[in-house]
């Protein structure tokens, strides 16, 4: 049986970005989460914060219009927007720890139904890449996670408990995968929206924790 189409990464990130509210201060993790900034809602004004102390950066710089001193957390050259400010690294994380960020969006290897997630160390490898993830996860007002629903060899990434060393305990609020949108509640994962063509039963089949199904379950929305 051919595999049914799943959501593209941009669509996944669009769906999370729809949840951002006007005026929010937003930190996007390196990799897939940066795609959230491609979703532009003219009715919402967001402030993008980067770990290196840039508060209020704009879209990626066009080739030829690069300012060599201005990069985001992924080292990508970005543009300045009016109102941008710069602080040093300790002040940037002071802002994070104070709880100023309304949301941080991160990638992950695993998310658990108790709100734990793991994104800094993979099995059978010494060391890890933490970066700012532990500070962000422990202190942002909301943690959103974007990840593929299964590993390359088809194993679930939504679990009862994380097998990998966690980044922070009990912090994840909302998860988007290429199959669904999930809220993390005290009772575990609730499936809120599903990818076109996928049934809750098929999604449950690929999930290692029991899913509760929202009463108003619907297909993915991509516009408010």
């Amino acid at each position: 049986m051919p595999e049914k189409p799943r959501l593209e990464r941009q669509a996944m990130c669009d769906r999370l970005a729809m949840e951002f509210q006007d005026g929010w201060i937003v930190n996007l993790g390196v990799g897939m989460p940066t795609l959230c900034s491609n979703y532009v809602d003219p009715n919402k004004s967001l402030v993008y914060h980067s770990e290196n102390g840039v508060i209020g950066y704009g879209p990626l710089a066009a080739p030829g219009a690069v300012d060599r001193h201005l990069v985001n957390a992924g080292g990508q050259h970005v543009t300045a927007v009016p109102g941008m400010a710069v602080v040093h690294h300790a002040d940037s994380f002071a802002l994070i720890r104070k709880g100023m960020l309304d949301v941080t969006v991160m990638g992950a290897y695993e998310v658990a139904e108790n709100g734990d997630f793991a994104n800094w160390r993979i099995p059978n490898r010494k060391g890890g890449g933490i970066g700012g993830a532990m500070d962000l996860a422990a202190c942002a007002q909301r943690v959103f996670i974007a990840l593929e629903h299964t590993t390359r060899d088809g194993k679930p990434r939504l679990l009862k408990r994380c097998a990998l060393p966690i980044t922070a305990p009990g912090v994840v609020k909302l998860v988007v995968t290429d199959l669904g949108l999930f809220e993390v509640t005290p009772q575990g994962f609730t499936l809120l929206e599903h990818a076109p063509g996928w049934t809750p039963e098929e999604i449950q089949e690929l999930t290692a924790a029991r899913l509760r199904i929202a009463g108003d379950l619907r297909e993915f929305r991509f516009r408010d």
Partner: protein
Amino acid sequence: MKNKIYRTFDEAVADIPDGAVFMSPGFGGVGLPRNILAAVHRQGARNLTGISNNAGAAGTDVKVDVGTLVAAGQVKKMICAFTAPTHPSQVSSFVRLYNEDKIDAELLPQGTLAERIRAAAAGIGAFYTPASVGTELAEGKEHREINGRMYVLEYPLHADYAFIRAWKADTFGNLQFRLAQRNFNPIMAMAARITIVEVENDIVAAGELDPDQVHVPGVYVDRLVRIPPAPDGIWD
């Protein structure tokens, strides 16, 4: 006024002894003291301990960074926020040595790394942070509940030398940074015992920088070198 201006990077790093602890800033390749690191590589000091956001990308396609010293076997330990590459394909010199147990490392959350440096700069004995609570990194560290929230105790990170990359400087050592170049530069410049700075613009006379626009006061700065034009100087 003491002369802080050195003619060459080699003279500015000549006294760094084996076993020294250094701090090296930079984030996303910006604000990275590449010229000083290249000079330390030529100078050859060994058994160094490095404090830096990452352990360098040397060994991949990157020019001089902390990894240049790592690759040359000059570093015995790194204190940083990444001990594995962000992408498995990026196998740096550090990763190779670390996997073979030929270099030591202490892994920290980035905000804890920054605050430990700031604590050294600020004369703070220790501080409590919520970052890493409930994770493997907090194991063995002192915990304390304050107002219903759990924190871990972290101590300052001191260094013998800070290697700094600045946008502008005056002869007294007052420094300015531009945009994301700032990152770890100010806190490292203020935390170390001896602060060596590479400067992107001509060093101006004391009094020419607006005192209200100084990011690091010159009292923290010991040595200044103007980066020469390429190819002698390393620009990003």
